[in-house]
């Protein structure tokens, strides 16, 4: 119990003293995870809409792959992204391994199936004839997609929350492709692992509490937007 109370005290002290290292680690966590979530939205929403609205041979198989991808283990993603970015790997020429860019890439790979899967479900949950009604109003294909996405905006916010929640809390991929380099690729999760390994539980607890507060803050903001929009 003392350990936890010490952790909370240390967390408050680190937060209120604006500890430079903690601040840098927190900002990098936010930067990497927000960028990865944004990238996953750019890929996942169009892909989800396409899979929800189109009909082609093998569509169910592709959707099954996406659903499987929603539970991708971060260490597996970390392993394959490392191999791809390794000096001799297919993307080795980018020379981004052990940089925040590699972490964004790995986290985007984790978040994209989550966003795609929730987008498919959101679009498919719209009333069956809504697409026909939009087209009957004279909408082009692009206008139809835009209106359907707009109609599914509340469940799509859940996709943003799930995507962000999935990447801000992962550690396996970030440590593998980022390397937990101080001042360069150290984020809240990797720093927590390191501090725990060193036996500095109070600092680890402090970092965990900051991570929890950060996750709660972002999700609270998105929830407020979602619930304000909810039809009553």
């Amino acid at each position, binding site marked *: 119990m003392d350990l936890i109370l010490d952790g909370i005290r240390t967390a408050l002290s680190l937060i209120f003293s604006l500890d430079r290292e903690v601040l840098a680690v927190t900002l990098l966590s936010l930067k990497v995870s927000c960028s990865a979530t944004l990238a996953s939205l750019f890929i996942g929403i169009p892909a989800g809409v396409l899979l929800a609205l189109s009909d082609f041979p093998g569509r169910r198989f592709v959707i099954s792959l996406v659903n499987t991808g929603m539970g991708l283990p971060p260490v597996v993603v970390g392993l394959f992204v490392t191999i791809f970015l390794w000096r001799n790997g297919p993307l080795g020429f980018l020379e981004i391994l052990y940089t925040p860019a590699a972490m964004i890439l790995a986290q985007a790979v984790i978040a994209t199936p989550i966003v795609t899967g929730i987008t498919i479900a959101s679009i498919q949950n719209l009333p069956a004839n*809504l697409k026909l009604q939009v087209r009957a109003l*004279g909408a082009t294909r692009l206008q139809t997609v835009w209106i359907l996405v707009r109609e599914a*905006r509340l469940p799509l916010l859940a996709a943003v929350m799930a995507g962000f929640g999935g990447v801000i809390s992962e550690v396996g991929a970030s440590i593998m492709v980022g390397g937990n380099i101080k001042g360069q690729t150290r984020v809240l999760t990797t720093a927590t692992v390191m501090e725990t390994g060193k036996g500095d539980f109070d600092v680890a607890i402090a970092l965990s509490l900051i991570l929890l507060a950060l996750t709660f803050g972002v999700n609270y903001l998105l929830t407020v937007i979602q619930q304000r929009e909810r*039809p009553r």
Partner: protein
Amino acid sequence: MSNLLEAENLRIRRGGVQVLDLPRFSVATEEKVAVVGPNGAGKSSLLLGLACLLRRETGTISFKGEPVMERGETAYRRKIAMVFQEPLLFDTTVLDNVAEGLRIRGKGREEARDIARDSLELFKVGQLTGRSAHKLSGGEAQRVSLARAFAVKPELILMDEPFSSLDLPTRIVLAEDLGRILHESGTAAIIATHDRLEAFHVVDRLLVLDGGIVVQEGRPSEVMAQPANAFVAAFRRTSYSGL
């Protein structure tokens, strides 16, 4: 009156089953046609097919003498409108719902809203403009749906059992209003219905579908006088005959 819409050899399959086989069908300018028939008769398929919203196995559709080609389907749909059984309103205000078809056609927000207000007034729901569309009663929502369809000033309106989910008193009033608006605006219409009330209030011609084919066609009084099958006979006995 010249033909506004013509369809030839219209055949539609859904789920591997042929649901419509219509050698020839036409609607004249300003004409109102009711399509009646039991469940599964092909009424909805006919309307969706005529709106080019269902893939046709065979058949051509011409609008004002011009064949509707695949590339021109969106342009064609911008000359017509369709109302479904459910109101299918968007998750926004009533005003923006009615303005949506106009916005799709490239009208500016304010111009579209001005036209939308007029259309809502036409259907006696002008007081609902700022309300969320998802907070309306069934009757209000269907009036808004009709206002949305009429806001784009269609030359032809297709209606798929638009009152079937409403209670009888609401249905009677709305059918009367719709009949008046259709005649005043001179809009041609095709209404699929189970209901003699809707059919008799507004139409010049009755088309009876069963099993995807036309089993009887003519003026409502002619069809009712000589029913071609049991469905038409039962339709004649519908309890709303005094209306």
